[in-house]
């Protein structure tokens, strides 16, 4: 029987993979994808908890998150494009003009 706990473990794994991806990937596109994973991990939680609790708040929240995530990716890609135009690279470790 699938319980909330199982879903939670799945979401935690997803979250972990997402964070790990953000931390280790060179390519910003993949970093963006990892970020999506994190959001989806949260979504998974919302939906799962929505089972356990009365009301549909969790599911509604998940829907909102999906929308926002789309917006976020759009913005992210926009920024990425400007960067790529100037630097001809999407490798995250090449951007360290500013430091200190």
């Amino acid at each position: 029987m699938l319980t909330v706990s199982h879903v939670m473990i799945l979401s935690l794994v997803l979250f972990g993979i997402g964070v790990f991806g953000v931390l280790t990937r060179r390519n910003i596109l993949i970093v963006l994808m990892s970020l999506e994973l994190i959001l989806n991990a949260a979504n998974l939680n919302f939906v799962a908890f929505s089972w356990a609790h009365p009301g549909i708040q969790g599911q509604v929240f998940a829907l909102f998150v999906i929308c926002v995530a789309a917006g976020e990716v759009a913005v992210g890609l926009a920024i990425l494009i400007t960067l790529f135009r100037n630097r001809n690279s999407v490798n995250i470790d090449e951007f360290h003009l500013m430091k200190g």
Partner: protein
Amino acid sequence: MAGFDPAVFIGNLAWMRPELLLAGYGLALLLASTTVPRTAKSIGGWLTLAVLAAAAMLVTAQLSAGPDGTVAAIGTFSDGSGDPAFVVDGFSIVFKLIFLLGGAFTVLMSMQYPDTDGGDSAEFLALVVFSVFGMMFLASGTDLITIYIGLETMALAGYLLVGFRVKEKRANEGAVKYFIMGALASGILLYGISLVYGATGSINLYGIAAAVAAGETGSASFLGLGMLLMLVGMGFKIAAVPFHMWAPDAYEGATTPATSFLATAAKAGAFAMLLRVFITALGGNGADWASLMILLAAASMTVGNIAALRQDNVKRMLAFSSVGHAGYVLMGLIAVGVAEGDAAIRAHGLIAVALYLFVYTFATAGAFALVALLRKNGQPGEMLDDFNGLVKRHPVASVGMLLFLLSLAGIPCTAGFIGKWWLFGAAIRVNLTWLAVVAVLNSVVSLYYYARVMVAIFIRDGEGLAKVQVPLPLSAAIGAAGLFTLLIGVYPQPFIRLARYAVLMLGV
């Protein structure tokens, strides 16, 4: 679904007048940016200013809509379970005024950049307006969905503002850093929200509070972890150590008006969210989160101020200083959390936060206005050396800068002192004397680097640097910021009264 009544809905919308105004205006700006001829755009800034002023008036009107015309009225939008999802209370009104103020300064400054590196100023203004719009939901939202949407609205506009100079490498880079880290932070925040939801079964702040009070929190560790992750997400937004590392780079990369916007309005927005969520929803667990915030506060003050000591780039320096200031402001929130039973102290803490954000907005926006002032011919004027001998080149602006720096350092006769007095008082009242000591020692440290700017302006010789011409919008910004900084320093009473409305959040 408690039945949808269009009349009630429209009636409720009346409470959203300022938000609606901004949203409508923002959209109009976007449209205009593609259709209106370029020559007419020069009035865009002033128009935006007028709209922001109108929004502020609408917000203030809500304030005086109370039964006896003195205290804020409260309107709520209830969600399905009957708890409000959007409230208009004293707290939200005070913070909205701060956002609008920060936005107005940004607009004033952006008019110094009529070309904004060839970009379209109308888009810039639209982004500012949208971001402010998002913040307003942060201040008013009492439902985590509302808050999350508000946050993302604010943040997405913010990412774009940082990266607005699309041809500038540093801007691109800052935007990417800000975006990736911001996205991660909101992901973490979201995950935290989901855990809290799991623990309490509610995404409404009042619902969560009720569940916590009733002990129906399922696994307490869920709640704790969720709370912690939410704190991390919000800590990122206020740029508290150790989640501050984006701030210097984003501040440096962005155009100065955008930087000012991030440092003032965006920070205030994040604080509004922090206060609202933690006090309203998790007020019962005050001691828990306060103990975490104490760590953040002490670390922010110390790291922020110490890192700022040797910065030669004034924008970066102010970025680190803003990290330190976030630490100071946290003290007010900590006092609210620690003093669970004592209403007077909780009120003190809230007033302190609200007042300080006012004070800080004036001083920081003013300081960035000076940085914007020194930019000319496309050359950034943000290095310390660019300030050399400014007093000879423009005495009034120099005195203004002096006031802002002193205010940031918390020297009396400027607004900063009044703000610090409230914050330190809050810490002392809850017996966190050591934190107050850390704070005051940091304010001494901070004076060291503020003094470096003063030295550059007043003591060093600015041979070879041209006289500064101040365009009208900038002089308005500097003048207003300077005036208020001095005024609050000498006669703070009206502003304390204003900040006092923030306390109404507790009363609901």
